[in-house]
């Protein structure tokens, strides 16, 4: 005869102290690895910067490649910059006009728009557009060269890839982006004149006279200086991300994407510093 045994309810299994300790240590290892990776990336970035500077001041300069890159960075970006500049000027004017009309200060419109374009909108928007167009292009191009062993082939043929691939691109971006910004500024002011004529009637000469009388040397000079730094950052980040891309095809897309993101962050940070420095100086 079967004895009646008491029925116990199955209790949920409590995590043992050992398991919890293992989980905690795994999490700690993961976090340490992330921190390690972060510092490794910073180290790699600084090493790449040092190698770029060293290659820039080496004896052999790839002038032909530099000119080719200037053409690619400058000329090929012109249509996009033209459109962007025109639209910035037009939109700024259309949106600001009603408020200025309310205050009876519509005559201040050309100066106000020109000032905001020259000081901030032109450089920053052009630089951000270039992050997408030039930075991603450089990241993807060098990334795919890395994947298809073209950079290795350059190295074994006794050519320094830093000198041929990185230096001309960084210098081309540094020199061409300020020129593109000036070009975008000009089209921005032109767009503003077009915007003023949608609802009002201003002659070209009057508009330009009012616009340029509002801009001084202290507005133009710091704005142009910071664009050299924007250019250098865009070129450098694009090359760095492409050059240090992984071996798979997936890393090409990643390099292009990271180039845009990191270059954009650099542009915003440089702008922040430039504004602070300008504020202190003027």
């Amino acid at each position, binding site marked *: 005869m079967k004895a009646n045994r008491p029925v116990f309810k199955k209790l949920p299994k409590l995590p043992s102290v050992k398991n919890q300790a293992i989980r905690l240590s795994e999490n700690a290892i993961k976090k340490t690895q992330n921190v390690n990776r972060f510092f490794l990336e910073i180290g790699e970035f600084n090493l790449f910067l040092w190698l770029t500077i060293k290659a820039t001041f080496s004896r052999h300069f790839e002038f032909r490649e530099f000119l080719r890159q200037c053409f690619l960075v400058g000329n090929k970006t012109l249509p996009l910059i033209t459109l962007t500049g025109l639209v910035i000027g037009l939109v700024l004017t259309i949106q600001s006009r009603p408020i200025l009309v309310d205050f009876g200060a519509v005559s201040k419109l050309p100066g106000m728009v020109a000032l905001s374009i020259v000081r901030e909108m032109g450089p920053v928007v052009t630089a951000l557009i270039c992050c997408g167009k030039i930075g991603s292009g450089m990241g993807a191009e060098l990334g795919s060269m890395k994947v298809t062993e073209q950079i290795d082939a*350059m190295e074994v043929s*006794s050519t320094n890839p830093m000198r041929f691939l990185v230096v001309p691109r960084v210098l081309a971006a540094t020199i061409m982006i300020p020129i593109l910004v000036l070009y975008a500024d000009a089209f921005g002011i032109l767009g503003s004149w077009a915007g003023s004529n949608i609802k009002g009637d201003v002659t070209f000469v009057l508009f330009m006279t009012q616009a340029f009388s509002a801009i001084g040397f202290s507005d133009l000079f710091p704005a142009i200086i910071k664009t050299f730094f924007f250019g250098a950052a865009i070129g450098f980040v694009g090359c760095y991300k492409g050059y240090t891309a992984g071996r798979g095809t997936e890393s090409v897309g990643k390099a292009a994407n990271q180039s845009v993101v990191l270059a954009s962050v650099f542009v915003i940070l440089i702008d922040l510093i430039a504004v602070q420095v300008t504020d202190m100086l003027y």
Partner: protein
Amino acid sequence: MEPSSYTNLQGRAETEIPAPSSPPSAKPIIEVKNLYKGFGNIPVLGDLTLHLNENENLVVLGKSGSGKSVLIKCMVRLLMSDAGTIHIFGKNVNEMTDRELGELRVKIGFLFQSGALYDSMTIRENLEFPLVRIKKELSSKEIDQKIEEALENVGLADTIDKMPSELSGGMRKRASLARTIVVDPLIMLYDEPTTGLDPVTSDEISALINNVQKTYNTSSIIITHDIECARATADRVIMLNKGRVYMEGTIDEFEQSEDELIQSFFKIRQPSSHKAQ
């Protein structure tokens, strides 16, 4: 003949296969001794020792992942070995300054698995690229002549102004070979020269490798797992397994070997044996 013992990466003795001694006149120009290379915790090459004699075609066979490509990348210091020495023309590659390494790389031609042609340049510009940087003393006329000669040697004279994207896989490999030989290297390193090509083109590439050796008087290391390519080009064969030299000998010795691993590598590739049964 002294038998050489072979151990796996953990150091356990695995098998003993006699290594043929080199002819007394042979002069080694590459000597690799006790080479170690790993990635993270994964060992790829472990205690690898081999040499390449002058005017010799050495074929390095092995399964994928056995460390064949890593070996030749260590030779030109595209990868830095963890331990061991690589002497090329009597100098240790790992101890060279950047300048010495540059001078050494001029003497070595490296044919990459993918061809690695610069895809933003025409074939002419691809060949011109190393030439104008290495042979600075040449006039533009001499450069043009050398480019045409190199392309003729690989049978691609009519593609001189084409872009790499306009060429087939085999043509790209040949153009890449032309770019390598245009600077008259003394040593050629071929990384899987026939991978991804049809049998006819593979035979053409194998014939080209032999032609390059005769015309340019080069010594070559050919990394491959293509037995037909090995048969066509090898003076001596080395088989790598688990990052070490598993067997060394002539192609005939390999084909007659009773060793299970060697047999599995060679016998599977007997072209008609399977169908004849």
